[in-house]
Structure formats: structure tokens, C-alpha cells
């Protein structure tokens, strides 16, 4: 019997099988940010276990609320900063170099095919885009990851999503993943790995694959995962060129990591993306999804473009294409948060930041900020935001606020119209 990619990675990292389905696996990376790690650090200190398993395999960033907005968030940052210094964690990203963790760490080349990664964050599944097994965990698991570099997990079961066809104009990775979540439901992949394959994925950039994998958790998935291929090698080449004589050699090695044709799946779901239209969420759960055309005209107060889902260069490019020569509607506040300093800098040199500013957008520094209703664009009671983020839970971006999740193209078109739409986008494309 063949194996899935998740099973292959898992099998090559098992160090113990304490009982039944539970396996202890060795971790290649433990990622940390300032919201969930300080609790773990304080608990380890209290228990006399203030140690780290390997400072070169721990990467840390202050990203959720940066710069700090009050004493509590300043304290969280300080605990992480002091800890990183104390343990000589070289890859610690503080203000000026920091960005949204799930955009920053891949951009730094920290994620490799076949890696096992944990982080105290739901959207750790993003890193599966590189063919890694990456899972969000709770505080105790994070503590053990930091201390021992291991994690106890049940043997992975996989749902395979086969994405066929080519998305029509105006349809992006975000629309594709929203359609997948709508089909699976918010619990449809609970405790499972969600494997994305098919011609649509093969044709996607790493950015698009990260958008797909990022939202696997919104269907309950432990990990999202794509097969590493030529696109992966090209993205990683500058980081791995010292280890391989050629791209082909790297590719040959990574290709052994794809699922076998006779691997066993829990469920296989085929979707033809060529019939998709731009999508948007309407309720308080990410599986409440409708075509934008059915939501056309819905009132909005704010447009937010950013986050680990859609705050990368490619996303900003798409939004800028729609915004070029346009103005944000006077009744709407437009906010864009490039996900990392590199995204910011590249967007600046491509003239994208200028387009956003000319349109009347507020350009913020790289941070999670408004995505979790912490800073940089919190909604007031009763306000509505169309957002390129991943969670539309009640109150997510501010108590009493409503969030509609959409692609950067739809968000940008809505910013110009002053209500939910994407017709603007098509007009621009025709012109």
C-alpha cells in the first residue's frame, strides 16, 4: 500500500509510539510569535525548564500587535524578546524586520519540503504549501516543542482535494479555497490533513498555494499540504543552492515526497475551478460562502487588504491592478498592510504602494493588526468590513463588527464602489 505525502513525512520523523495511534515525531522547526509563546515561556520558567532544544531551529517574531499598542502587548513583546536573547535565538524578528509570521518565515527560506513544523497558531498550516507537515498546536505542545523538539500527534489521515481546470479571470486562490471550505464545511476536515493537488495547484505560484493551505484550518484541517515541484524549487533556490548541484537534483529529491498513486485517503473531492466565480462570505463562519454577484451592493465601511492569507506581493499587485487610477469611495476606509518588509519594499519599487496611496488607502506597517481586531483598523459596533483575511467569526475584527472574506481583487473593487462588488474588476480587465 502506498503512502500519502503526510504519511511519508510523518514516518521519517517518528521517534516513539507511546500508545496506539499516538506517535511522537521529531520537529525540524518550531515557530513562535508574541501572543501565544510568552505563556509557554512563563510556564517553562516557573517549572524550572527555561531551556530550548536547539536555538537554530526556533524562529520567532513579534507580529500580531506591532508596534505595541498598550502595556500588555508591550509586555508580551518584551517576554519574547528577552527570551530570544537569553537563548541566542538568532532568527528573531523585531520591529523594522518583522512581518506576519506565515508570510515572513517562508520568505526567509525557513520552510523546506519534508519539514515538520509546529507553532502556537492556527494558521501554521500555511507552510504546507512547501510540502511540509505544519500544524498549529496549543500551549503545552508548544512548550514541549521548544524544550525537546518533539510533538505527539495522531497518525495523519488525509482528505485529497483535486482541483481541475483553470480559474476564469477574476477568480483567484482565495476564491478556490473559499469554494473548498464551502464544500467541506467548517468541521469537514477536522483532525485531517488537507492535500491539494491537480492541474490548478500545479499552475499556481507559491503565494497562491500558501493562500490555499492557509485556510485548511477553516475546514478544521490540522495541515494543508501541496506537493513540492519546480515552482517550489524556484522559490527556494536562493536558499538551497548550496546543497544541490542543480535545480534538477533538488527537484528529483523533492519529487520522492509526493503521494503514491495507491495511497489511502479518507475522502477525495474533485472540484472544477473553471466554473467558479468570485466568492465572498456572508455569515460568521468561513463556510458561509456565496458568489459575489449574489452579495452585490452589500454595504461596507472598511476594506482591509493584508494578513497571512492575502498580504503578499502577488495579492497587492492584483489589488493595485483594480485600483490603478481609481479612488476609494468616500464612505469607505481602505487599509492595506503589506505582510512583510520585503513585500512592502517590493511593492514600493513596483509603484504599487503609490497606486494604493493615490487611491486613498492607508498603508500600514507589516503586522497582523486588524485581522484579529487588535490594532490598525478595529471595527466599531455594527460596522462592516470586506477583508482578505481568513476568519469572519463574530467580532473577529472588533466587537459587533461584521467581516466578509474575499480575494484582494474583490476587496479592491468593493473599495472603489463603496459596496461589495467585483464588476469594477471586469471593467478594468476589458479596458
Amino acid at each position, binding site marked *: 500500500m502506498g503512502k500519502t505525502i503526510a504519511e511519508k513525512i510523518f514516518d521519517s520523523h517518528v*521517534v*516513539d509510539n*507511546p*500508545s*496506539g495511534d*499516538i506517535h*511522537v515525531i521529531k520537529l525540524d522547526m518550531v515557530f513562535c510569535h508574541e*501572543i501565544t509563546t*510568552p*505563556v509557554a515561556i*512563563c*510556564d*517553562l520558567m516557573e*517549572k524550572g*525548564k527555561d531551556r530550548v532544544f536547539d536555538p537554530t531551529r526556533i524562529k520567532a517574531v513579534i507580529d500580531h500587535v506591532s508596534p505595541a499598542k498598550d502595556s*500588555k*502587548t508591550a*509586555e*508580551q513583546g518584551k*517576554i519574547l524578546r528577552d527570551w530570544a536573547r537569553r537563548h541566542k535565538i538568532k532568527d528573531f524578528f523585531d520591529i523594522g524586520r518583522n512581518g506576519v509570521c506565515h508570510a515572513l518565515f517562508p520568505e526567509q527560506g525557513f520552510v523546506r519540503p519534508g519539514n515538520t513544523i509546529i507553532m502556537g497558531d492556527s494558521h501554521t498550516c500555511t507552510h504546507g504549501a512547501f510540502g511540509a507537515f505544519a500544524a498549529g498546536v*496549543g*500551549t*503545552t*505542545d508548544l*512548550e*514541549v516543542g521548544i*524544550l*525537546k*523538539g*518533539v510533538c*505527539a500527534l495522531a497518525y495523519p489521515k488525509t482528505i485529497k482535494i483535486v482541483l481541475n481546470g483553470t480559474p476564469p479571470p477574476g477568480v483567484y486562490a482565495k476564491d478556490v479555497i473559499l469554494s473548498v471550505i464551502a464544500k467541506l464545511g467548517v468541521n469537514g476536515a*477536522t*483532525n485531517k490533513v488537507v492535500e491539494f493537488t491537480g492541474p490548478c495547484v500545479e499552475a499556481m505560484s507559491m503565494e497562491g498555494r500558501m493562500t490555499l493551505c492557509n485556510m485548511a484550518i477553516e475546514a478544521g484541517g490540522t495541515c494543508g499540504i501541496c506537493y513540492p515541484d519546480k515552482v517550489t524549487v524556484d522559490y527556494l533556490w536562493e536558499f538551497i543552492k548550496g546543497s544541490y548541484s542543480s535545480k534538477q537534483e533538488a527537484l528529483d529529491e523533492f519529487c520522492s515526497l509526493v503521494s503514491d498513486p495507491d495511497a489511502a485517503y479518507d475522502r477525495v473531492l474533485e472540484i472544477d475551478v473553471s466554473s467558479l466565480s468570485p466568492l465572498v462570505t456572508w455569515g460568521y463562519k468561513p463556510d458561509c460562502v456565496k458568489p459575489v454577484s449574489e452579495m452585490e451592493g452589500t454595504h461596507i465601511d472598511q476594506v482591509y487588504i493584508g494578513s497571512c492569507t492575502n498580504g503578499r506581493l502577488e495579492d497587492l499587485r492584483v489589488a493595485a491592478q483594480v485600483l490603478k487610477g481609481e479612488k476609494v469611495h468616500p464612505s469607505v476606509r481602505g487599509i492595506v498592510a503589506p505582510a512583510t518588509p520585503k513585500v512592502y519594499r517590493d511593492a514600493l519599487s513596483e509603484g504599487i504602494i503609490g497606486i494604493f496611496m493615490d487611491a486613498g488607502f492607508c498603508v500600514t506597517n507589516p503586522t497582523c493588526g486588524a485581522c484579529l481586531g487588535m490594532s490598525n483598523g478595529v471595527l466599531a459596533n455594527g460596522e462592516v468590513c470586506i477583508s482578505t483575511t481568513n476568519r469572519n467569526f463574530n467580532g473577529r475584527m472588533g466587537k459587533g463588527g461584521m467581516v466578509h472574506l474575499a480575494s484582494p481583487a474583490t476587496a479592491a473593487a468593493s473599495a472603489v464602489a463603496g459596496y461589495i462588488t467585483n464588476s469594477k474588476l471586469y471593467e478594468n480587465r476589458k479596458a
Partner: protein
Amino acid sequence: MKQFEGNALFLDRSDINTDEIIPAKYLTEISKQALAPHLLEDLVLEGFNRDEDLKGKGVLVTRAWALEVNNINVVIAESFSRIFRQNMFNCGMLAAELPAETADRLFSTFAGKETYVKADLENSVLTFSAGDLTSEVSFSIGAFDRALLEAGGWLNYSDSRY
């Protein structure tokens, strides 16, 4: 090894969610101790008076999945979410599942009375007692979960092994 016993708090409701256990707004706190005063703060349940009812309790009995922190070391319910259940054992606390009929019987016999609950891990038996009333019920626990309890949680378990 830690003893798994204490005075019981009965919460007669199903689907207690994490926001009712600890409201999400406290996630900027950095220590578990800082969270302790907010345990069950937003739980709405008829006849439940948080400040009075929580005092001195060490065992929580509910209809379905629930909580952590304070001095509570045992939670008994019909079922738990996977993450909640694993977190309990990871922290060296016992999450015991009982069939619905057993839970119903325990609620009708003991809820509202001063009840003491003691878990015997070796024999997988929970003893409920209130005055002259005593009831013994068995529960099942996996070998790994038992080892975690014996070690005092996943942190100690892994630190001594890997």
C-alpha cells in the same frame, strides 16, 4: 503521584465552549495565574452562581466538553473536544468520559448535594460520595493518557524521555 479528587461542581449543560471557560478577551494575559479569576466568567446557566459555586471545588461534572485552570484537576463529561481532552492530559489533569445514562444517574443522585469525587486510576473507577450515598462508576483511560497523568503531564513526560 498527584491525587485526583475533590469537591464536585455540577454544571448541567451540554456544549460548554472555550469562550465560556475563559473569555477570549483575556488572551493578552501572559500567565495561567492571571487567567484563573476569569474561569467560567461568561458561563450562563440557570442556578449557577460563579463566585459561590466555584469555591473549593476540585472536580467538575458536566454534560459535555468543558474547561481548565484553578485547582480543578478532574473534569467529567459525556464527551470532550479532541484538543480540550488532550490539553487536560497534557497538563496532568484527568478528563473522564461517562456514558450519557451514567451521567444522568449521577446528576439526579448527586447534583445539588455536597459531593466528593475520587478517581482511582489504577482500577479506573470514580467514586462519588455525598453523606450516606456512594456510587462507583468505571471509566476508560488509554495507556498513554495514564502515563501522562503519572508523569504530571506531557512536559515532564517528554523531558524525562526524549
